């Protein structure tokens, strides 16, 4: 900052026009909460020196919806619809975190078929979420075509969900001990066809965006996050993996069926915006593989609900973590022997990632801040809960 000030002043003196020296000072600008590229109601404050960002920090809470207080008031199963609404782009991942926590406290064994259904729907969710991220990110960078393409394909996945559980976004599908209803007839064929289709689309997206000169200029080397910074700041999911750390809860602490199937954990090298994009797109390909595996081995018939007592009254505390499309979601659940949780704390990856904003933006151009925010894949519902 001081350097650039010096440069400006010396340049002026060298021109020797005799005009008074231009005084430069920092500019504090406000972005949001209503801004097309803040992905909801994020407010970012940035201190600028010319076009360079000196410091940036987020102001959150514009979507704080008292989720944790509600979870202390409603009976345990009645909280599931609210978990949907924390991360509304990956609602099933949120449900899974909560349901796993309660099942851990109650020692419930979920039937095999239900586990498979959870596994398949969860991976589909990851694809849908990454597709939406791709679309929104393209829109942030000015590529409207990518947005329209991604939404077209996401709609097809939403159609599957709609046939399965009647909702497009907020499913309320998982239950403590299983899932609400069985797969519909033709699910397997529809999804397999969809996966074939998506594989072709991925190539299309790749051709459209990956080696695009404008896209590369705006992303390569922008918002670099080193591995040490990523760990210290608690980054997880694609943001952490793009910095070169192969940490995935699906591998490190397998839940559902992730220990049965082989899949790659895509890892970046530079930790910049471009790597985060590459990691997410590679994850879609891996998820397609996992969905295929799951559909292959899906048991024909069988229970979809465990034998769960009508009134749940667990006690004790537990912590369940899963790998959502955005990173590590955790649920710290404390129960006191009644049918209402005593405390539910939600560890949300986006909340943690938003702290990175300053680290990512410092020293870069103000125009790159949009790319930085976009690359973190922020869902404000999950940040504020």
């Amino acid at each position, binding site marked *: 900052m001081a350097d650039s000030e010096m440069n400006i002043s010396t340049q002026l003196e060298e021109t020797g026009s005799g005009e008074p020296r231009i005084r430069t000072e920092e500019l504090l600008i406000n972005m949001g*909460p*209503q*801004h*097309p590229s803040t*992905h*909801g*109601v994020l407010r970012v404050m940035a201190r600028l020196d010319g076009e360079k960002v000196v410091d940036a920090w987020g102001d959150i*809470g*514009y*979507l*704080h*919806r*008292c989720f944790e*207080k*509600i979870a202390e008031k409603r009976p345990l199963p009645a909280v599931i*619809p*609210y978990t949907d*609404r924390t991360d*509304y*782009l990956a609602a099933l991942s949120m449900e899974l975190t909560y349901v796993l926590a309660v099942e851990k406290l109650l020692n419930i064994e979920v039937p095999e078929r239900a586990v498979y259904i959870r596994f398949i729907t969860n991976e589909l969710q990851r694809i849908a979420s990454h597709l*939406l991220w791709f*679309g*929104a990110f393209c829109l942030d960078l000015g590529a409207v075509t990518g*947005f*329209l*393409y991604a*939404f*077209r394909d*996401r*709609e097809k996945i939403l159609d599957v969900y709609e046939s399965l559980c009647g909702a*497009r*976004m*907020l499913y309320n599908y998982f239950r403590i001990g299983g899932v609400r209803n069985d797969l519909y007839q033709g699910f397997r064929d529809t999804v397999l066809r969809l996966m074939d289709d998506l594989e072709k689309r991925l190539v299309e997206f790749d051709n459209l965006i990956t080696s695009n000169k404008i896209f590369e200029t705006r992303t390569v080397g922008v918002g670099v996050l080193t591995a040490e910074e990523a760990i210290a700041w608690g980054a997880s999911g694609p943001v952490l993996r793009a910095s070169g750390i192969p940490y995935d809860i699906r591998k490190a602490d397998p839940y559902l069926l992730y220990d049965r199937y082989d899949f790659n954990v895509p890892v970046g090298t530079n930790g910049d915006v471009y790597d985060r994009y590459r990691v997410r797109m590679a994850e879609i390909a891996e998820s397609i593989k996992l969905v295929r595996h799951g559909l292959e081995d899906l048991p024909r018939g069988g229970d979809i609900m465990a034998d769960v007592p009508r009134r749940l009254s667990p006690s004790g505390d537990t912590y369940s973590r899963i790998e959502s499309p955005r990173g590590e979601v955790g649920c710290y659940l404390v129960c006191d022997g009644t049918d209402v949780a005593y405390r539910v704390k939600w560890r949300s990856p986006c909340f943690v990632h938003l702290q990175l904003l300053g680290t990512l933006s410092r020293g870069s151009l103000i125009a790159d801040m949009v790319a930085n925010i976009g690359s973190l894949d922020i869902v*404000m*519902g999950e940040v504020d809960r």
Partner: protein
Amino acid sequence: MGLIDNQHLPGIITLPLRRLVNWSRKSSLWYLLFGIACCAIEMMATGASRYDFDRFGMIFRASPRQSDLMIVPGTVNEKIADRVRLLYDQMAEPRWVIAMGGCAINGGPYHGEYNIVDGIDKVIPVDVYVPGCPPRPESLMHGVLMLQEKIAREGIERPLVRV
């Protein structure tokens, strides 16, 4: 629309000016791009490939000063209520508001909780309420069509009413 002297003159139609104005207003509702919560994703989906808002003459604008319609898609809490009011005040007349989803109507699933404003109509006046959690894109389009009907009737035979 009518004829002059019972004659059809090529290229000329007669109609009350108000109706012409209303027709043009309702056919180019530019809406404010203001995503709050889950409903915003459905609003985006409505604007995207499959549902395509553009055919209603609806294009999103990022600035409230260029928009006619404010779709409030999501929960409004104490922290953002003032901002919503500010955005509404920045919009030029005539302006309309659609409350999208249960939260914007009366708090929805979050009704009565500590940080929640129970309905966006506690902050700004609302023209059309679109229920759902979240409403499907079809619901939102239906809401827009209802708003268009409402605009078409405005100022013709309507006394001063509070809506």
